[in-house]
């Protein structure tokens, strides 16, 4: 088990090094950053000064090593547009993105599993058919359109919920949270739905298909033949077997939720990492882009690792396969 964890961790580090090379090479290929910082009437001497202060005149391997050593300590250099350390900017905005992503994922998981189980158990009911139809819309509509439609309905027409921003936030150490104020909670609702809707429909369809599959298996038939209650059969025996593939998908989707947050954050002007990234792209603020890339891949890799470990908790068969392999 420990060997398995270690092996997976080493693989994760390999992935991070590869991503590091890519994000570093952005500095070399996305044009001269100095031009982005200075104005037209900056003198060449001043430009050289800036170039030197940013370390852009060193040899490429040295720049790479320096970049890497810094990145490993979460130092990503100074933003060209804000003139602030990128790590500070990211740290400042990460709570907003994570809160949004977590709320969206919880929303997607809870409703996705409930709706999926319901439409598997009551396959022919009208509500199950409505779920199926709505899920098709959820899968096919682009995120920004859903966001705009929600804003139109709940903010513009009904005026119930704010159309942008995070509302009032409370500061807990370095973390800022919108979960403790009413306006913060209200501001979370629409972006969470927008961001989570695709995941919700995906999970719902997956749970439904898996559950139907599991309900046909011999051990479910045997569980019913033993006279177990319908509830024990459906929610004890069937649901747990359904959740194994759901964990994978939900885990990987959490990564995409953070990545997809770019669009949702732009639509709702949500002050998170995604919005920061979009602004960075518009201003060719390469340190931010590179750092964002690294952060998102770190999150992805970590989630993958956690999902792999979660499997072994849910499925005893994997536990013994792993210990045999190790």
């Amino acid at each position, binding site marked *: 088990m420990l060997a398995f964890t270690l092996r997976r961790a080493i693989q994760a580090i390999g992935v991070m090094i590869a991503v590091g090379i890519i994000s570093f090479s952005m500095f070399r290929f996305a044009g001269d950053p100095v031009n982005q910082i200075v104005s037209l009437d900056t003198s060449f001497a001043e430009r050289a000064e800036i170039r030197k202060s940013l370390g852009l005149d060193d040899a490429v391997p040295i720049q790479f090593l320096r970049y890497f050593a810094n990145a490993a300590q979460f130092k990503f250099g100074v933003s060209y547009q804000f003139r602030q350390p990128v790590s500070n900017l990211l740290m400042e905005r990460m709570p907003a993105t994570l809160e949004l992503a977590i709320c969206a994922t919880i929303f997607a998981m809870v409703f996705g599993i409930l709706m999926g189980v319901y439409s598997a158990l009551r396959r022919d009911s009208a509500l199950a058919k409505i779920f199926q139809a709505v899920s098709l819309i959820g899968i096919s509509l682009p995120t920004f359109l859903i966001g705009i439609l929600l804003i139109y309905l709940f903010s513009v027409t009904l005026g119930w919920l704010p159309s942008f921003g995070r509302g009032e936030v409370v500061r807990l150490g370095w973390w800022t949270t919108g979960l403790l104020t009413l306006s913060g909670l209200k501001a979370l609702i629409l972006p969470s739905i927008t961001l989570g809707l695709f995941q919700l429909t995906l999970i719902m369809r997956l749970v439904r298909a898996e559950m139907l599959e599991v309900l046909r298996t011999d051990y479910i038939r045997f569980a019913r*033949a033993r006279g177990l209650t319908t509830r024990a059969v459906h929610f004890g025996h069937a649901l747990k077997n359904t959740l194994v593939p759901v964990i994978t998908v939900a885990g990987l989707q959490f990564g995409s939720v953070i990545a997809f947050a770019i669009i949702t954050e732009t639509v709702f002007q949500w002050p998170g990492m995604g919005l920061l990234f979009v602004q960075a792209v518009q201003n060719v603020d390469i340190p931010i882009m590179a750092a964002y890339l690294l952060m998102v891949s770190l999150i992805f890799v970590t989630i993958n690792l956690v999902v792999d470990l979660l499997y072994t908790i849910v499925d005893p068969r994997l536990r*013994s396969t792993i210990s045999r392999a190790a």
Partner: protein
Amino acid sequence: MTNPVLSVRNLEVEFHTRRSVLHAINGISFDIAKGEVLGVVGESGAGKSVTGLAVIGLIDPPGRIAGGEIYLSGMRIDHLPPEEIRRIRGKRIGMIFQDPLTSLNPLYRIGDQIIETIRTHTNLTETAARKRAIDLLAEVGIPAPEKRIDAYPHEFSGGMRQRVVIALAICAEPELIIADEPTTALDVSVQAQIISLIKRLGRDHGTAVMLVTHDMGVIAETSDRVAVMYSGRIAEIGPVQDVVQNPLHPYAKGLMGAIPTLAGEDKRLVQIPGSMPRLSAIPQGCPFNPRCGFVFDRCRVERPEPIVRGTQAVACHLYDTAPKEAVKETAA
């Protein structure tokens, strides 16, 4: 006379498909007494398993019991509401399925599955149920049950898993066990152990057993009586000795002729030509008539009803005493 443990009367099971209604079971009747083992044989699709599922009330839509009655120790159970038949399943009727590799939930320890079943049907506490589970595992021949109770299904071999399945089926001391091909998926050497285990449990607890299989050898070894099924009907039923040594129905004759014997002389085994009709195309009259060597006109029109011959009952026009000339005609 006391009631038989299981009594099935004119049972009919239908499956509604988009195109038509398929008759899987067409009016079968049989009894199983306390402590008796009834073997049910037949080809795949003869309706053996469906009969077992009908008794325990697990026919899923689009299938349904279309007619007849099922009595468990005199109490009618075929039309009970789902919640009441659920209480009978596992408690008064235990069921063993064919494939032990897939019958157990892979994510739960076997002990938890047994304890859950015990606690569903009794008021035992967790600790008492666990003790009972260990006793059960010992009874079905699992070595070191107090250790193995915390193992997962994948940590057992096929034969051992089938023992666990049996322990699960008998954990509430049912009056009737339905064993649906309990040995088909097992090695031959393990088959014998499982058969003798089922036999022993039946004897020790006075449990009635309905043993569904297509293996005549297993039937001959285990059963007191045997029912030969063909196309959703019982072709012949009687004490196992009589049916094996002196089969009456042409189909039963064919089945017994297809069993290889060590003592028998060196000749080819008998084959029954053709295969069983599909449910959507059961011929008129006797369903066996297209394959029967003794077929005559009446077989093609009229469905034979069971006729009692000594200890056996056989559904074949050959044994109907009324139109005797018909028999001669075929013989000639």
